[in-house]
């Protein structure tokens, strides 16, 4: 048994280049079980890259990432690690050729080896949870962006992940649809899911996050609980960034 007090995600001194551009310059971050961490920062600050390193959609050049006791670099089977990490994308990425129901069932059947009946039951329960059980036979192109994103969250949850990663989940949504997605995420946070969220939704950060991480130019500049970071940031760069996104 792994010690439950150990951080579930340990990121140690991660460096990453895209060609000549240095995207991450020595990032250190621990995330505890059940913790909700929100990462903010200007575009190009490396926050999405960092998130994508956690399930190795992005390879990193040096450093160590450990997820649930498994060292990612050189992990024998990265697919096993990914099964435990749900990911939600800015552009939803629902499988366009499958119905909502089949989107939720596919990975359950071929990865978790669940019977169609079992997978279907789990999918239906999750669709109820995210509030759109009536859309099970629709194709992704037939439902709204907010609905697609909720389906995408349900699809990730169907694998019973221990960690959920959210990469700007509401950035591609019309304003009136943002709330329905954030509500689902807030519920998830209340249930004790470990979540790492890249987002500029300050309302969500205040309500659900235990810690806010501010990143700039590939580094973590400052981290603090939301009530502290939003009211009295220590660093000048954090102040400048927050004044831009909070005062408009």
């Amino acid at each position: 048994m792994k010690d439950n007090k150990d951080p579930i995600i340990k990121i140690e001194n991660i460096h990453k280049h895209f060609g000549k551009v240095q995207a991450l310059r020595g990032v250190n971050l621990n995330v505890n079980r059940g913790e909700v961490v929100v990462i903010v920062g200007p575009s190009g600050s490396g926050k999405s890259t960092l998130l994508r390193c956690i399930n190795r959609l992005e390879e990193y050049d040096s450093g160590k990432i450990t997820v649930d006791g498994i060292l990612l670099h050189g992990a024998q089977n990265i697919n096993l690690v990914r099964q435990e990490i749900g990911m939600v994308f800015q552009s939803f990425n629902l499988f366009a050729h499958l119905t909502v129901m089949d989107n939720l069932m596919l990975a359950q059947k071929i990865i978790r080896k669940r019977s169609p009946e079992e997978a279907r039951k789990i999918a239906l329960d999750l669709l109820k949870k995210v509030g759109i059980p009536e859309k099970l036979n629709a194709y992704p192109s037939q439902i709204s962006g907010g609905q697609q994103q909720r389906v995408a969250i349900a699809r990730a949850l169907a694998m019973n992940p221990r960690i959920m990663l959210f990469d700007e989940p509401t950035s591609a949504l019309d304003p009136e649809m943002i709330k329905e997605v954030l509500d689902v995420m807030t519920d998830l946070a209340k249930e004790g899911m470990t979540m790492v969220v890249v987002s500029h939704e300050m309302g969500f950060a205040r309500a659900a996050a235990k810690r806010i991480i501010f990143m700039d130019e590939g580094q973590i500049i400052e981290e603090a609980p939301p009530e502290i970071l939003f009211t009295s940031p220590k660093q000048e760069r954090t102040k400048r960034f927050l004044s831009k996104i909070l005062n408009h």
Partner: protein
Amino acid sequence: MFSRRKTESPEINTPELDNVPEAGLGYHIDVWWWLVALVAGVIAILAWTKPDPYWRIILFVRDGIGMTALITVTSFVIMIFVGMLGGLGRISTNKFIHMITTLYVEIVRGIPLLVQLIWWYFAFPVIIRNLGQATHIGFLANYEANAVLLAIFGFVFCYGAYMSEIFRAGIQSIPKGQMEAARSLGMSYFQAMRHVILPQAIRVILPPVGNEFIALLKDSSLVSAVALADLTRRGREFMAANFDPLQVWTMIALLYLVMTLFSARIVNYIERRTKIER
């Protein structure tokens, strides 16, 4: 909440599918079926009103039609698999596999199909025989060229390269996010290809693949140069015996035309079926 298609992200669309020229013009299909019927009718009327020479020509070239169909259909089925493997090779991150498939595509595209067919039929058996003699393996040393087999091989080898490019383009037209979503659920690269990418790519690939079938049907007439009794070859044999080139080649042309028009309708039908399913 009930707005449909309101926030469609370009990432989850495959615009290629929406741009299929005949999409939504269902009633035009019947018009083109009439053209198939018209050409078939002309053939029937010619055969009925002037059985000599037209009906005689049809009877004479009948087995040639069978050979043309056999070569075309068999090659086509095999080259789909070659194209899929070649396409996967062309997008492979493995440098060696990528280099081999790219080399294959570049070489094949640079040599005329007729020269390739002749090479496989006349030159390739020589290599086999020399190899057999060098290694003292009897059945290789006495290898006799099988015209049908080598013709199919030649077509698969050549068209497989073009098919690889079609598959490559089709796979690459699927947004990157689809692969990322599949991988992030724990699927392996090949599971993601099989369950997520290829089923979507197929719909993009279908129109050009259908066109390849029709091109292949026409190109199959080249096998008449390598001792295969296909439709074209049989036509030439009939002409040699009867000296009526006008009638023979008009009939041969009409027979090819009815086959290609019919195939085009079938391709169109399949395209529309897979589109509606969406």
